[in-house]
């Protein structure tokens, strides 16, 4: 399968300003490379401050990069202009995390969903019928057309956001924590709906979340991020069964599992991480994870390990596996 999206050495620094001059940079995304294949769901996992949200926005060019390229269907997204840029926007959409601020409170649902169509001046036939068909696809009804966002629950609002994202008939969607703000039972509904949509419409997803269980459920491939760098990429099963990077292992062991016997047994083996997540403004030298890593060696403090393939599409960035 051909890669729909190829990210190459993507970098994004945010300058930190005191008064007028820049005193440092937030290394939000620091030389990240990976591929997303057509039709797959690519999961991006990491804790707060790891840069996954920034990465998602970079791929859609909602922010400009400091360096690096993102190829969408072979073309560099950052070089697109005018009509080509609009064409790209039509094919690549995003669903945000917060269903409460994702919808303009002053607009009616019909206008919210139809707006992208209007902006791109696409002919979809009767506007009302088109929007109703979108609503029904996400499990809402035509009665909801002329209501305001505040009349809906979080789960329903998220469906509206998804309907709007589908309005342009995209082929790629970035899902930025789409269910983090929702209740467990609603989350399951939305996740299943997203999976079905992917199958029915042949969509490709970039699924960003801090919740490993959700990412595991949705994704085919998972990439783990820490402080702006990708530390491990593998298939969903591989990452879970054989996590190689110490950070990935730590993440997995920290997740509470809803099974008391298993959970308490795991407690013995849990790796409780030391300290806090360091700030992305002055990342530690060498391997970013070394201050908290139980296996840190000398070389880890000096040099950054490269992201290398250790088998069947499984890549790790760790001196435990890379040859010196």
């Amino acid at each position, binding site marked *: 399968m051909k890669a729909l999206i190829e990210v190459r050495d993507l970098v994004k620094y945010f300058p930190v300003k005191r008064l007028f001059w820049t005193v440092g940079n937030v290394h939000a995304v620091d030389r990240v490379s990976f591929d997303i294949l057509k039709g797959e769901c690519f999961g991006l996992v990491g804790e*707060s401050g790891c840069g996954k949200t920034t990465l998602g926005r970079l791929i859609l060019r909602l922010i400009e990069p400091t360096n690096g390229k993102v190829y969408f269907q072979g073309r560099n997204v950052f070089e697109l202009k005018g009509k080509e840029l609009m064409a790209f926007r039509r094919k690549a959409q995003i669903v945000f995390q917060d269903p409460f601020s994702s919808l303009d409170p002053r607009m009616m649902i019909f206008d919210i969903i139809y707006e992208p169509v209007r902006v791109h001046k696409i002919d979809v036939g009767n506007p009302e019928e088109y929007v109703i068909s979108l609503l029904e696809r996400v499990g809402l009804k035509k009665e909801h057309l002329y209501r305001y966002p505040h009349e809906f629950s979080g789960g329903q609002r998220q469906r509206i956001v998804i309907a709007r994202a589908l309005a342009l008939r995209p082929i790629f969607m970035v899902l930025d924590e789409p269910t983090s703000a929702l209740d467990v039972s609603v989350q*399951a509904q939305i996740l299943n709906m997203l999976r079905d949509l992917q199958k029915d419409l042949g969509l490709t997803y970039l699924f960003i979340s801090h919740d490993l*269980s959700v990412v*595991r459920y*949705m994704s085919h491939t998972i990439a783990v991020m820490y402080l702006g760098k990708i530390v491990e990429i593998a298939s969903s099963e591989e990452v879970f069964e054989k996590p190689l990077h110490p950070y990935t292992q*730590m993440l997995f062991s920290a997740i509470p599992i809803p*099974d*008391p016997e298993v959970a308490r047994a795991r407690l013995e083996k849990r790796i409780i991480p030391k300290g806090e997540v360091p700030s992305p403004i002055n990342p530690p030298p060498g391997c970013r994870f070394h201050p908290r890593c139980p296996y840190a060696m000398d070389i880890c403090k000096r040099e950054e390990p490269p992201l290398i393939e250790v088998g069947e599409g499984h890549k790790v960035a760790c001196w435990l596996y890379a040859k010196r």
Partner: protein
Amino acid sequence: MNEEILRIEGLKVYFYTYAGVVKAIEGVNLSVRKGECFGLVGETGCGKSVTMRSVIKLVPPPGRIVSGKIYFEGLDVLSLPESEVRKLRGRKIGFIVQEPMSALDPLYKVGYQAGEPLLVHGLVKDVKEMWKRVVNLFKTVMIPEPKERSRNYPHELSGGMKQRVVIATAISCVPDLIIADEPTTNVDVTIQAQILDLLRDLRRKYGTTLILVTHNLGIVAEMCDRVAVMYAGQIVELANVYDLFKDPLHPYTKGLLEAVPIITKSREVRLKPIPGTIPNLIRPPPGCRFHPRCSLVAEICKRERPPMVEVKPEHYVACWLYAKR
């Protein structure tokens, strides 16, 4: 160990809003034993937070405790005057709030805020002694460099640190009961592990009773001895933690367990969402509040509210599948 430290009987809390009366808590009964870790599980809006706030009589308006009794260490809390209840708050019952960001006053040093209960309840002679105790307190909650950190302001600390300060505030007077309201909801997974570890540690050291309110079934499985499941203002199941997960009786509990993505399950196993949404509590469904979403609904479920029955030792359910008509 089997002694009861908290008992709630027939609690009803209603919210009087312009849209109507929200019957948020409709008849909740539970009892918590000394020294145990009691889990209160439910989704947003089920009323678990409100129930706990009732225990310390801090239900925010327009809410009002309409009826019911709450006994803490034998005291009838709801009939006590405000001045007496104040003596309980912070001193005998510590409350860990959900949002560490807004739980701390940005204008005061964190050390002062953590030590304030000591001052208020007269457990220290003066402010100097309070600061000394605060440093020890911070050490207990594993804040590195406790002396320096205690002099910081909230905005100078990370989220995990702030949550520890909130925990420190709650335990400063060494209360008999700690109520933790979603203590790790907005915190990273690794920090969550640290905080849960801390809570376990504190329980071991001081034998404090802990009530853990959360929507995360994993945390409950890991931490709690007994669990109560709440739905739409009512308790639907109450059991010890192993029984609850091994043998869930109530359809809602079963539904929850099947709807949660579990990391150990493969992608192929599809989640089973619970159809429908949480009911409007201004016009709650008659009978069993879960019946509109229940796949095993029967006629009686729509008419009458099922009583809580003990199906197995220490395993209670409120469902017509088990109660005798």
